[in-house]
């Protein structure tokens, strides 16, 4: 491939420096880890990588994430809705005031009719545009959403099945597609071949399993997020070494998740490695079922103190942050927990002795883990490292290694189910940017199987009270404080064995400028350009 530092490029640079607004530059080509282009139906598949690449690029939601800073925690900001408020009398109803002037790429208005249409695609079973495939990708992320209706052209009322202050955060996962574009074929499969949203990138061309091409949408409502690059090309490359080779040979400018053993080589060849801790937690989720040793608080605390998290970071090429809870200190939800999660094997031994375990009666623990999987980082190496740490304080760990998909099925059925094979903990990493995902589904006593993933059967009235308190607090600042209180309880109860947070490494060619890696699963591709 060519690496031309031609006269043209120099002229371009001069032009960029001498004009007040740099013109759109270059084609940004990204190698994703997904095996296929995530669904372009407006509700992407492939987990949050899907939302990152075919969600936030071509589409907007009522509420969005602030992806502008690498330093501060990424919070929810207005998107297609300029403002929202819960009905003071009936807290199951929300009023969303829509932004005027936002247009879909086909030129039609983003108005209340369009927004209600998009709610109906996953809620209204008899609507022609209702689609089970979209439902699967959407409703698990907004469990209390129950309806939406138009109040006027720029006002929508959204309803939930119970008072839920998390709903505006959940709604970042509902992307708005152009009803006019859907109506042309009345099929989401056809719509996906030429999707129309209102996001900063416009669809150009899709070759399934090979590439998705987009171009900048100059008419985007948020002028600060009109893309700086002219075109964006996404290519699926599930194999880590293939991504690295594609970057090294100049076929792409940016790759997601370079394998940790290639980082040194990439850095030495002048590639940029960007990373930033994001709302991801890699834990062992404990079983609280009676008779399980992990139902004992001292055992859970001891296991938390037995882990050498710096050792694990070394194992991961330092692409991880040691965990001190569900979210890191400094996060608005961190609160002020009393139990300090750190490496203190002596204290761990003492706590185990107090719990009745010692050299004469070693503690035996069974953990269900996977050999690979999305977000699981390097599960085998990390778990074996922890097994050695725990052995050193007198805990014998037995692993039940499962295929990723099976581990997920077991996660849903809970620790009491025979499929869980008597496991005392399960190792499933998760996203924590939404309070439902980070807390409610694990610690609300109603969230046991089959409702959600309170795998360990946590039945703690105090946590129930705190979850309900946070969910029922509609003032954003006060809600953060309420979630902080819940987090304090979670950490003090050592409800999980908290290990690390991922840092989402990416490798970029030196030609890529302007990219800011925010503390989020999603990233703003609008600021990046090629120079």
């Amino acid at each position, binding site marked *: *491939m060519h690496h031309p530092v031609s006269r043209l490029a120099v002229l371009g640079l001069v032009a960029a420096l001498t004009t007040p607004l740099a013109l759109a530059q270059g084609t940004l080509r990204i190698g994703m880890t997904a095996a296929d282009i995530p669904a372009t139906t407006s509700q992407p598949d492939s987990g949050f990588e899907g939302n990152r690449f075919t969600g936030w690029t071509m589409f907007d939601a009522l509420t969005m994430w602030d992806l502008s800073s690498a330093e501060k925690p990424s919070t929810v900001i207005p998107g297609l809705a300029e403002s929202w408020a819960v009905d003071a009398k009936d807290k199951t109803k929300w009023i969303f005031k829509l932004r005027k002037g936002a247009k879909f790429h086909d030129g039609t208005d983003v108005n209340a009719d369009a927004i209600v249409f998009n709610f109906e695609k996953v809620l209204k079973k008899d609507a022609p545009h209702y689609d089970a495939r979209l439902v699967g990708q959407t409703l698990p992320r907004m469990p209390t959403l129950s309806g939406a209706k138009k109040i006027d052209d720029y006002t929508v009322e959204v309803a939930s099945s119970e008072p839920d202050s998390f709903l505006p955060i959940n709604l970042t996962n509902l992307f708005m597609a152009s009803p006019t574009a859907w109506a042309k074929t009345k099929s989401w499969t056809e719509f996906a071949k030429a999707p129309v949203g209102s996001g900063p990138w416009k669809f150009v061309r899709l070759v399934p*399993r090979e590439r998705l091409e987009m171009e900048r949408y100059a008419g985007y409502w948020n002028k600060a997020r009109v893309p700086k690059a002219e075109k964006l090309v996404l*290519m699926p490359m599930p194999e880590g070494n*293939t991504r690295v*080779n594609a970057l090294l040979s100049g*076929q792409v400018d940016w790759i997601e998740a370079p394998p940790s053993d290639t980082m040194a080589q990439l850095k030495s060849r002048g590639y940029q490695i960007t990373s930033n801790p994001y709302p991801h937690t890699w834990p062992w989720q404990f079983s609280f079922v009676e008779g399980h040793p992990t139902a004992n608080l001292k055992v859970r605390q001891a296991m938390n103190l037995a882990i050498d998290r710096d050792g694990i970071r070394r194992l991961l090429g330092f692409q991880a942050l040691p965990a001190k809870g569900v979210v890191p200190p400094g996060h608005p939800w961190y609160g002020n927990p009393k139990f300090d999660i750190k490496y203190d094997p002596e204290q761990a031994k003492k706590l185990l002795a107090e719990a009745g375990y010692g050299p004469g009666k070693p503690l035996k623990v069974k953990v269900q883990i996977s050999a690979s999987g999305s977000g699981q980082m390097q599960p085998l190496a990390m778990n074996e490292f922890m097994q050695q740490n725990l052995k050193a304080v007198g805990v014998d760990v037995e692993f039940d290694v499962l295929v990723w*998909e099976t581990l997920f099925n077991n996660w849903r059925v809970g620790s009491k189910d025979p499929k869980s094979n008597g496991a005392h903990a399960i190792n499933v990493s998760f996203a924590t940017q939404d309070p439902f995902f980070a807390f409610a589904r694990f610690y609300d006593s109603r969230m046991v199987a089959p409702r959600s993933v309170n795998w360990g059967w946590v039945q703690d009235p105090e946590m129930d009270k705190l979850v309900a308190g946070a969910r029922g607090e509609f003032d954003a600042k006060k809600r953060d404080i309420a979630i902080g209180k819940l987090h304090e309880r979670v950490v003090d109860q050592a409800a999980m064995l908290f290990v690390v947070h991922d840092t989402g490494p990416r490798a970029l060619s030196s030609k890529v400028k302007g990219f800011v890696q925010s503390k989020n699963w999603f990233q703003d591709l609008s600021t990046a350009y090629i120079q």
Partner: protein
Amino acid sequence: MFTYILKRILYVIPIGLAVSLVCFSLVFLAPGDPLSAILPPDATTELIERLKADYGFDKPLPVQFGKWVLRAAQGDLGTSIATGRPVNSEIAKAISNTFMLAMFACGIGFSFGLVFGFVAGYVRNTWLDKVVTGIAVTGVSLPHYWLGMVMVIIFAVLLDWLPAMGAGAGGSDAWAWDWEHVRFLVLPAVTLSFIPMGIVTRTTRAVVAEILNQEFVQALRAKGMDSLGVFKHVVKNAAPTLLAVMGIQLGYLLGGSILVETVFSWPGTGFLLNTAIFQRDLPLLQGTILFLAMFFVVLNVLVDILQSIFDPRIRR
């Protein structure tokens, strides 16, 4: 001859049924949920049950199988759960990409294999024979995904001569028969050609050596036939075995190589299967396996018929 061909074709029916049963049931033995392609991992059991009903996965397996076979017999392999696109069109596109790759790989592998094999067969137990056999053994023994990675590092990363992955700068939809596109074929095709080259070399060497030892060859030579004439007889006698071996190798290559196509992100059937497996996209997985299996069956019938033309004894 006609009865023989008819018999061979009729055999395809029971084989096809058995193959479809295996294709259908095998994917259900694998762990995971058939709806994992469209459900996030933390979807509730309630929602999963609801969608299972929507997609008909709540019906008993024999009922699902019956419906699937009936549709497949009419040429409809269903719709991909993950993409909503018809499985037929997904396979058609992937097979054309794999076909292109396989033809190139066969071209390279069979030509070198035949030349090497004939040379080694004619000059048995000389240093040249040992060199050729060495190459053949290496070709068969090297894991081809490893070879692919090494070639990418040398020719794409270090020398910057050829692209590391993909099927053309604009994707396979924009394929054209010019060097700008064909260069994308070179590394995966050469990688894939090593195994058929090795196998064809070894088989050819053995068959040629055996034929050369037979009495009829000595008789031909004693009658004064020149080397070229003898060679023609050797080729004719070696052809049935070689055709069978090449047919099987072609079948393997047309089935697509999951590893090589994944290493090169080549959008063929191997890459398609890989995606279908990871997404647990059952209709796509079942459809692709069935298509490839049937393709293999048909290819074998064709080879049988061809063999019988070259060697009428087979018909008896």
